[in-house]
């Protein structure tokens, strides 16, 4: 595996090949990053993926529509609700139904909660990689109450399988509103504090300011997604561009930062947490009554033949799913367009010319999810 790449790359005497991976602490999952170094500068970078390729697209073709939902969870386990949402909204538009009003609210709230916990873990992992271990521990500590909230509704910590066609699996439990508001209040205070620490700490600033700069033009050309894109000053957010669920009516702004360096990408994530809290607080007071799912048998779903491309804003960016139905109980073809896939692809050009020591900061500031890249 490694030998192959070494023979492909012709090294000069002054250059050195460094393998990072497949198991490496800076990675959220296994992938192989080969760096050609000259001194301390990265001359070339190659990525090899697929170490946890599970063939999800093939499995989805062999499952009924309802059975697909748990599999979509496991594409990116940090954003399972968005994965459910992108699949279910696609199938809904194939079937020509709409989620009920109450379900729309519940889904939006859950999507934003997922975003908060994903960003917290993303920042935490990134903090470990740049040697800021206390921040990692704080972030995991902050994340646990959010996980408890998600668990309170869905019954699972990570893989929720919560969204259904035309609704959600369960109603909100009693006391959810009070608990959510209390938790979010605490999280907001803590995140603001962490934000302050991160924007003041001189060592941290030296480590991140001006490192791994992705210009606005380059970001658009490389097609990175989500916070990595918005950190470069592009206000591209599916919630605004191609709105779904309640987002057309909600008041929120797309967080951007101008410089496109590591600092900005993380700053965008921190600010997005606060923005998500604001969104949830708007929704939670207005949840209407009524049914939380459409009254039909979910086991017998047979959409009309056709195809659909649905998109949602995953915590990591634009998540798309292309579903082809041939009128049977199983989808004919499902293709997933993952945000981490797009972001990962842009990593080798971004690493070129950077210092070896900055490699960890740059790679983890992209907050990629290997599982979703490989699928």
């Amino acid at each position, binding site marked *: 595996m490694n030998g192959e790449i070494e023979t492909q790359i012709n090294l000069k005497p002054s250059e050195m090949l460094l393998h990072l991976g497949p198991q490496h602490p800076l990675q959220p999952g296994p992938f192989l990053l080969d760096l050609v170094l000259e001194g301390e500068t990265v001359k070339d970078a190659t990525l090899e993926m*697929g170490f946890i390729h599970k063939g999800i697209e*093939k499995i989805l073709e062999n499952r009924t529509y309802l059975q697909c939902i748990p599999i979509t969870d496991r594409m990116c386990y940090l954003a399972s609700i968005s994965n459910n949402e992108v699949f279910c909204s696609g199938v809904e538009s194939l079937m020509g139904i709409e989620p009920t009003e109450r379900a729309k609210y519940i889904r939006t709230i859950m999507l934003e909660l997922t975003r908060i916990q994903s960003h917290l873990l993303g920042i935490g992992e990134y903090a470990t990689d740049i040697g800021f271990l206390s921040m990692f521990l704080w972030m995991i500590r902050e994340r646990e109450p959010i996980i408890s909230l998600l668990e309170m509704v869905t019954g699972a910590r990570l893989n929720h399988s919560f969204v259904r066609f035309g609704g959600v699996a369960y109603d909100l439990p009693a006391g959810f509103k009070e608990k959510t508001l209390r938790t979010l209040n605490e999280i907001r205070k803590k995140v603001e504090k962490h934000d302050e620490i991160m924007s003041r700490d001189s060592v941290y600033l030296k480590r991140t300011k001006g490192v791994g700069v992705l210009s606005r033009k380059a970001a658009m050309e490389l097609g990175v997604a989500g916070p990595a894109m918005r950190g470069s000053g592009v206000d591209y957010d599916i919630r605004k561009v191609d709105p779904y669920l309640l987002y057309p009516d909600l008041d929120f702004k797309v967080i951007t930062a101008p410089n496109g360096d590591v600092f900005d990408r993380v700053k965008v994530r921190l600010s997005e947490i606060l923005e998500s809290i604001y969104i949830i607080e708007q929704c939670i007071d207005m949840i209407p009554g009524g049914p939380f799912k459409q009254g039909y048998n979910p086991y017998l779903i047979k959409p009309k033949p056709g195809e659909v491309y649905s998109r949602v804003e995953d915590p990591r960016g634009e998540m798309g799913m*292309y579903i082809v139905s041939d009128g049977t109980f199983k989808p004919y*073809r499902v*293709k997933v367009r993952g945000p981490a896939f797009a972001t990962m692809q842009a990593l080798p050009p971004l690493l070129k010319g950077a210092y070896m020591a900055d490699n960890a900061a740059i790679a983890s500031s992209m907050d990629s999810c290997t599982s979703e890249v490989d699928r």
Partner: protein
Amino acid sequence: MNTTGELTLNMLKEKFQVTEMRVESPNRVWARIAPDKILAIAKFLSNELEFDHLSSIAGADYGEALEAVYQITAYSHGIVLTLKAKVPKSNPVIDSLTPVYWNAAWYEREAYELLGISFRGNPNLAPLVLPAEMMGEYPLRKDYKGYPNPT
């Protein structure tokens, strides 16, 4: 009244003689194109119509033919233009979009190894997620024998 999506389709129709097309909703438009025109159409879309973002390249197996499906969209608006090009299974070759959209590279590699669509002009058409020894099995094709896993 014509929406932006319809206008786009009309432009494609005039310029590239696209015949089969449909408007599903204001934000989703579809067109079937000839496989040899994909590069020209992509150049036209990205240079003249500001479709500057390639969202995804999917492939699908329809028995005799393989289909490459391109979702082209933009950073400034929400219209997703889906272009579909059928290539015969005996000779599944289509032009690569990498000269126009840089990020097409990995999508094409994925479609190449999983479905066997070969993209002419891709700088590095190597397997991305499959181990080298599984290359050539094309697991996403409908006639693939290795599923379910016999082990």
